[in-house]
Each structure stands twice: as structure tokens, then as C-alpha cells.
């Protein structure tokens, strides 16, 4: 406890006495985590846009003339990956056709008896599930035919897989680059204290006692930098969403209520962990060098 109190006091001293390097570390953390957060948002939005498009995919199953619409609906709803089922009776189908034909709807009366079959519209969770659900529907006895955009679903499924890999790759690259920049900045900050670390060890201080203030310093700047990055990113993203909504309404950017609390939490958590590890590696390296007798 005495050591921890000492470490807190010494961390405050380090902050006061190295304003220049502290500002540099703060700015580095801010910029690094702004880009990590931006990458995360790009990844989330890519996935969101694809999932919106996937949600529009529908498998249309046309029923046998005597089929029980409710029973088919129930069976279809029980299939895996199905997110919604809508039944359309033959009468409703006729009404829809009339509505679509508009002022030429009178032509429908020439058909005499309603020739349109009842159908169910099945929505699935993702594009890659479409083919499987379509096969299950075809296999049902009361279903006569199934229509779905097979090629589109296939392309969308490929795009979705690519987006998943790309998002992960983007996040890993941004995090690694961030960690590297952060490590080097903290290393430079600690290098300016190299002599101090050496003297501390020469007079008998334990490595943990020497390193704790430097690690707390890293955590402090990690917290401040990521907090500032979260706020800046949040404000910029909000204005981007507003401007996209007014100019390109067909593009729906992700804007769920708790998004920035979660993103901020993720960034601050990652920032603190990364800063702690980078400080530990950097200070440990100096301590190892200083402890090694020549």
C-alpha cells in the first residue's frame, strides 16, 4: 500500500515534470485510437449495410392449389435461419396484381377464375442461408415451386464473408499499428528517464517499485487519450450520419442508441490495456539493461 501511494505520487510528479513528452504521448494515443475506432466503425458499417441488404432477400414459395396456407406458414417459420414468414392467399395475390396493373386492372377480369396460387414469403438471416431454406421449402409436399434470387444471394454471401474477413483484418492491422506507435512513444518517454531508472536501481529499489509509476503514467495517458478519441470520433460520426441521411438517404449508416457507449468502452478498455502492456515492455527493457552488470 505504501508502495502504491508512492507510485501515485511519483506518477503525478512525472506528469508535472515532463509536459512536452506527456502531450506527445496524449496526442499519439488520441490519434492512434481515433484510427482504431474509425476502423472499427468502418467494419461495423460494412457489416451493417450487408446485413440490411441480406434482410431484403426473400424466398417466395408458391403452394399447391389445395394447400393449407397456415400450415405451410407454420412449417416454414420452424425452419432454421428463417427470420420472418408472410402468407399471401390467392385472393390477396390477385388484389396485389390489380394494384400493380393500375388502370389496366380490368384486364384481370378476363381471366375468369383466379389463377394465382397462394404463397409464402420467407425472410432469412443471411444470404448464405437462402439456398438451404429454399431446398427445405421445395421438399415440402404442399409447396409447388420456389422462386428466389439465387445468383444475388450467392454473390451477397461471398461479399458478406469477405466483409467479415476484411473487418477483422482492418481491426487487427489498426490495433497492431496502434500498439507499435504507442509502444515507441512510451519508450521514448521512458528513455528520457533512463538515467533516473538506473540510479533508482543502483540505490536498491526493486524493479516493481521503479516500474509502477511509469506504468501508471502509461495507463493515465492511455485513458485520457482514448477518452478524447472516443469523444472526437463520436461527434464526427454523429455529424457524418446526419449529413449522409440528408444527402444520401438510401445509405443507412449504423446509428443504434448504445453504439457510442459500447465503442467508447471498447476503446478505453483497449487503450488502458495496450498502454499498460506497452509501458511494461518499455520500462522492463530499461530495467533489464540497467540491472545487467557489464
Amino acid at each position, binding site marked *: 500500500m*505504501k*508502495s502504491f*501511494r*508512492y507510485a501515485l*505520487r511519483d506518477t503525478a*510528479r*512525472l506528469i508535472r*515534470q515532463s509536459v512536452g513528452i506527456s502531450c506527445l504521448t496524449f496526442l499519439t494515443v488520441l490519434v492512434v485510437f481515433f484510427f482504431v475506432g474509425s476502423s472499427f466503425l468502418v467494419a461495423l458499417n460494412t457489416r451493417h449495410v450487408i446485413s440490411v441488404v441480406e434482410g431484403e432477400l426473400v424466398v417466395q414459395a408458391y403452394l399447391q392449389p389445395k394447400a393449407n396456407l397456415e400450415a405451410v406458414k407454420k412449417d416454414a417459420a420452424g425452419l432454421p435461419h428463417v427470420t420472418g414468414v408472410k402468407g399471401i392467399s390467392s385472393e390477396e395475390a390477385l388484389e396485389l396484381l390489380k394494384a400493380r396493373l393500375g388502370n389496366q386492372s380490368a384486364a384481370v377480369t378476363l381471366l375468369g377464375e383466379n389463377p394465382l396460387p397462394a404463397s409464402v414469403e420467407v425472410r432469412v438471416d443471411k444470404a448464405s442461408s437462402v439456398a438451404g431454406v429454399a431446398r427445405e421449402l421445395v421438399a415440402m409436399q404442399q409447396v409447388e415451386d420456389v422462386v428466389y434470387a439465387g445468383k444475388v444471394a450467392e454473390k451477397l454471401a461471398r461479399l458478406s464473408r469477405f466483409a467479415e474477413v476484411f473487418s477483422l483484418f482492418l481491426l487487427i492491422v489498426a490495433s497492431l499499428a496502434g500498439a507499435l506507435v504507442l509502444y515507441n512513444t512510451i519508450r521514448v518517454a521512458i528513455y528520457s528517464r533512463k*538515467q*533516473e531508472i*538506473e*540510479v*533508482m*536501481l*543502483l*540505490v*536498491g*529499489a*526493486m*524493479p516493481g*517499485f521503479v516500474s509502477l509509476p511509469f506504468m501508471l503514467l502509461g495507463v493515465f495517458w492511455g485513458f485520457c487519450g482514448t477518452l478524447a478519441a472516443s469523444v472526437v470520433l463520436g461527434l464526427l460520426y454523429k455529424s457524418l450520419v446526419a449529413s449522409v441521411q440528408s444527402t444520401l438517404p438510401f445509405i443507412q449508416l449504423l446509428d443504434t442508441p448504445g453504439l457510442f457507449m459500447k465503442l467508447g468502452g471498447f476503446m478505453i478498455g483497449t487503450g488502458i490495456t495496450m498502454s499498460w502492456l506497452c509501458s511494461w515492455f518499455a520500462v522492463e527493457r530499461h530495467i533489464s539493461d540497467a*540491472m545487467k*552488470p*557489464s
Partner: protein
Amino acid sequence: MEIRMAGVTKTFGEDITALEDIFLSIPKGDFVYLVGPTGSGKTTLLRILNRELLPTRGQVLVGQYNLRKLRRTRVCQYRREVGMVFQDYRLLEGRSALENVAFVLEAVGASRKEALDRAGEVLDCVGMWRRRFLFPKELSGGEQQRVSIARSIANDPLLLLCDEPTGNLDPQTAGEIMQLLLSINASGTTLLMATHNRYLVDAYRQRVLELRMGRIVRDQERGRYEVDEEL
């Protein structure tokens, strides 16, 4: 702490031999002057005893510690029992004189108050109490040296290594520091002091080890700075 060195040689690079084949035994509580010209190996010997350097050959035993085989945590424990006054002071630039001394005590687990009280006491002993809030850059060489001495004795070390502790002091202050070192030695601390100060060695006669070209050329009880012709 008792010191024993057997066949200690230290070379830097291929052709610089700082110490050569040193055999030495210093009993606990001894006061030993290390004398000799610049480059004779005095500082190297002290740095080996502070475990800043490892001998190229030979064994060094200090108390219960074999300095060749110390692990990292044991090095810290060992250094807590050893005080060292560095030739270049090595004070922590960002801390006041008081904090420089208190740091050593906090590092070994003293509370802030205990550390500051004790730091004040030892700074008073070296005549630096009035300047305790000044930073190293604001102190003269002699004052920094006195803070360095205060830091080295704050912990009541069992072994005190002093590399030219009076090098930047006027004769009167040097005499006062010498009295302080003798009183520390009288309490049982083994003390090794590298010095060029002929007056002090001759005035306060103790065991003298003279080094030349890395070898011990004289080991004399109650010796003088130069070879004592009377003996």
C-alpha cells in the same frame, strides 16, 4: 560486511585491464582507503563491489553474497545493504535534496513521513538541512556531493563505498564529512573510500590499499598516502 576477493581481474575490451589478479580480504567493520593515480582501478573495484560490473575472472564475496551469482531480486536486496557515494553524485534530477534521500528509504518500505524525517536527519548531519528543498541543478558540486553522502548513509548500510566523497569539498567541510564517515564506521559499517586527498589519509590514518595499473601494490595498516618510509 566482510569482503573477500580472490583472483579478480576486470578487462574492458581486449586490451584494457582495469584490475588484475586482486586478492583481498577486508574484515567486517574495517575502514580502508583506496589510493592510487587516476586510472589505477579504484572506481572499477568499487563498482564491482556495488555489482555494477562483473569481474572478468575471479570471485567476489561480500557478507553472504557471492556477487557473481546474484539473481535480479537478490541484487536489489544486496544494494539495500550497501551505500555508495558516486564520483558523479548520480542524484535524481527531478527531485529535491530531501526527496533524493527519502526515495532510498521509501524504496525499502518506509512510510513517507518516516522517510522524510530520516532524510531530514541525515541532511542535517552533512550540513544540507537548510538547502533540503533545492534541486540538484540548484546545488553546487560540493553540495551535491554532500546530498549523495546523505543518501548513501540514510539506510544505515552495512558496507559503505565512497568514490572520492570529498573531491569537491573545501578542507573544513571535507574534515567534517570525514568525521561523519568515521562515526559511521565506528558503528560497525565496513567502509571503503577511494580518494586522492593526501591530507585526509595522513590525518585520519587507517588501512591503505594502493593500486597501480590495476594491481594492489601496497596494503598497509594505519598507512599514509605515500609509502611510509618509517616502516
